[in-house]
């Protein structure tokens, strides 16, 4: 009986910790499946969401996807889901000049934040960086070291629905390119 209790407790503990550890990866795998499905079988009106690996997400299109919960409806989200097995990732994005709230985060594959910056911390109208999994720092450009897979995620404030068209055009100059 004692041996049974010990076996059950040990197996339960290992299973629990394994699932907890895998939790973020399960969610990121779900995100990858959602992206693949969004590209292959876009919902009506969501056909222009992806250009290469850049996802120009809008409030309606992401609300239908199972991996998305609690999106802020007055944000326009832009996302690059990357895999550094394809090379280092060069990222270039437009930065709003006005006081409009804008922030970019780079997430490791377990969802932890590796880097973030908002538009009050940037002087220029574009911001560029390189994402790599190597220790080599590039002198010419801001270099961020992350896990092999990861996510660059932008939030851009939309105050009212009539701003959507102009802001969508603005953000579509974003570049995520393997080098």
């Amino acid at each position, binding site marked *: 009986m004692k041996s049974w209790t010990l076996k059950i407790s040990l*197996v339960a503990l290992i299973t629990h910790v394994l699932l907890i*550890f895998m*939790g973020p990866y399960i969610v990121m795998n779900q995100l990858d499946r959602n992206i693949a499905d969004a590209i292959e079988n876009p919902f009506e009106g969501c056909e222009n969401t992806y250009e290469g690996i850049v996802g120009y997400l809008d409030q309606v299109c992401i609300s239908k996807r199972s991996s998305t919960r*609690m999106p802020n409806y*007055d944000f326009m989200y832009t996302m690059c889901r990357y895999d550094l097995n394809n090379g280092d990732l060069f990222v270039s994005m437009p930065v709003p000049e006005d006081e409009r*709230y804008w922030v970019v985060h780079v997430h490791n594959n377990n969802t932890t*934040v590796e880097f973030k910056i908002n538009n009050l911390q940037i002087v220029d109208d574009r911001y560029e960086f390189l994402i790599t999994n190597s220790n080599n720092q590039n002198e010419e450009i801001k270099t961020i070291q992350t896990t092999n897979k990861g996510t660059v995620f932008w939030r851009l*404030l939309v105050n*009212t629905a009539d701003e959507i068209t102009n802001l969508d055009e603005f953000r579509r100059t974003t570049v995520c390119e393997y080098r």
Partner: protein
Amino acid sequence: MRKTVNKSLPYIVGILIGIVSFLPFTRPTSTAAFLTGFGKDSINQWNYYLDYGLESQNIWQRAYVSLLGLLPSASPEVIYLQTSFDDGGESLSGNCSYELSGEVPDARYWSYAIYGNDNYYLQDPNSLLDQPTFEDLFAQVTNGSELTSKIGENYIIKIDNNLMSQNGTLSHFGNDFTLILRIYGPNLNYYDNPTSIPVASINNEGCK
């Protein structure tokens, strides 16, 4: 056969217990909130989260946040406040009307959004569509540009069914709901003294 079952039974039971103990972390539950510490800090009925994306979080906190479907912002970019209760301690109900009154926080931008208790968007249960529209979604959020951005000024937000215009109202579309206040670019003093974050009161104005 019986011998094999007896031998494997403790492993099967162990795996089942492991899976069951993991499930509370896959959705908003008081068990997970208690075990992870997310949700332990509150001002009145509002739970506040100073740092959902903290670097030092343990594997339970990381799993809970990601399984809630969040790619969280990191401190000090945003403070989240969440509640599912009115001032009387009753759950926020789709059968009732509410008046939310508060004070503009010291921040770059603030907004309230309304979600179902499963953290997904809401739709009118009486006219279910396959997909939400921009109008449906914008009816579930209101922010400083609709009301006021003047720090310290008071605002009032009506919460009811089918309030579709963007004039500082929120629509629950007849569903039970939870409320989130997001404070982006907050005054850093809020991190030192969280009780100074201005939280709103939520008065029940009547139910069907």
